[in-house]
């Protein structure tokens, strides 16, 4: 049993297992003795091939590298090898799409919320700063202040905010404020690729 397993490892060292040797790789990953044989058979070949020049330095960093990458983030991304099988209509595609949609929705939500808060800041700067900078849950006093200041934003002002040059100014102010505040809250990169685009034909932005 053990002999047969090690013979498979020997074949895999030469990539002569047939296919991609997936089942043997599975065994290698599970079995320490097979892994060890894998390393030693490769090393034997290295030493044999280096007999002529004699310039080989024996290193064994496998355990050190393994320990080091243990703390590294696990790699998870789509496989795009030219040599790898192409037809792979799997659940990965769906999960990636869902993840992408989820991230986009989260970013959009945060953007809308921050933008609304920014409007609130523009109307009542002093009160707004208190509300934004308060990282702990707001107390009753802040809640009262917030509702009071929000009430000052009437519907006609909202219409103005959403149209024309005023909108552009508000957006620019929001972006500038966002950059400033995100630095303070270690939230850099939240909206890394936003560009101000002018839809009103004023020639500003883009």
């Amino acid at each position: 049993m053990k002999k047969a397993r090690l013979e498979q490892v020997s074949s895999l060292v030469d990539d002569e297992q047939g296919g991609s040797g997936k089942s043997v790789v599975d065994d290698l990953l599970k079995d320490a003795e097979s892994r060890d044989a894998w390393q030693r058979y490769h090393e034997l070949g290295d030493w044999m091939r280096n007999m002529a020049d004699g310039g080989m330095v024996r290193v064994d960093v496998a355990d050190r590298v393994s320990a080091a990458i243990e703390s590294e983030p696990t790699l998870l991304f789509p496989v795009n090898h030219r040599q790898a099988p192409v037809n792979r209509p799997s659940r990965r595609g769906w999960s990636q799409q869902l993840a992408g949609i989820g991230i986009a929705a989260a970013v959009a939500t945060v953007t809308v919320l921050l933008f609304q808060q920014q409007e609130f800041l523009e109307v009542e700067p002093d009160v707004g700063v208190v509300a934004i900078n308060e990282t702990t849950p707001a107390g009753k006093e802040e809640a009262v202040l917030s509702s009071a200041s929000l009430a000052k934003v009437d519907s006609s002002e909202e219409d103005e905010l959403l149209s024309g040059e005023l909108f552009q100014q508000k957006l620019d102010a929001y972006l500038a404020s966002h950059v400033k505040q995100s630095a303070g809250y270690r939230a850099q990169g939240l909206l890394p690729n936003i560009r101000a685009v002018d839809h009103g034909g004023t020639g500003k932005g883009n």
Partner: protein
Amino acid sequence: MADAPNQRSNNSANIDVELVRRVQQGDKGAFDLLVRKYQQRVGKLVSRFIADRSEVEDVTQEAFIKAYRALPNFRGDSAFYTWLYRIATNTAKNYLVAAGRRPPRSDVDITTGATEQGFELEGDQSPEGEMASEEIHRVIRQALEQMPEELRLALTMCEFDGFSYDEIAEVMECPIGTVRSRIFRARQSLDKKLRPLISTNEVEEAV
């Protein structure tokens, strides 16, 4: 003699692709297998730049960690080992620059270790390193000499000449299963004699 990759490149492509694919899907154990496979060859390449043995180990380790971090960018346009050797070369050069030492002006051929200017850079020339290398080579020669001819022939055609099992079977006029078995037995025989000299941590722990 040329180094391993130019002889093993065709043979190793499939298994490397499979292992890289697994790493890219989050299997860190598969990366460990790549490290175990290539660490001697990367170590040798690094030793062309750096003479000190402990520094060679450090830089080799660093090269593998960099490779792991860079794997998202690996698209399989080139073979994994050429990509890995490029990283190792750059890591060694950067190490020398950071240490205030001058890296070689020309690049090292990743397959032979020779520079473009036609000379080889220094390897581990310490007396201990040379003695260890000589001892290992002596044991390998002795083991090959004592080995039954059919085992020696199968293994040397595989390791020295880079022949596939099919080609060896054709030369030796025997079934491919026999070739597989002969190469394995030859390796086992060599491994047994070399074990005291190149034992791995896992073996030491298991014994």
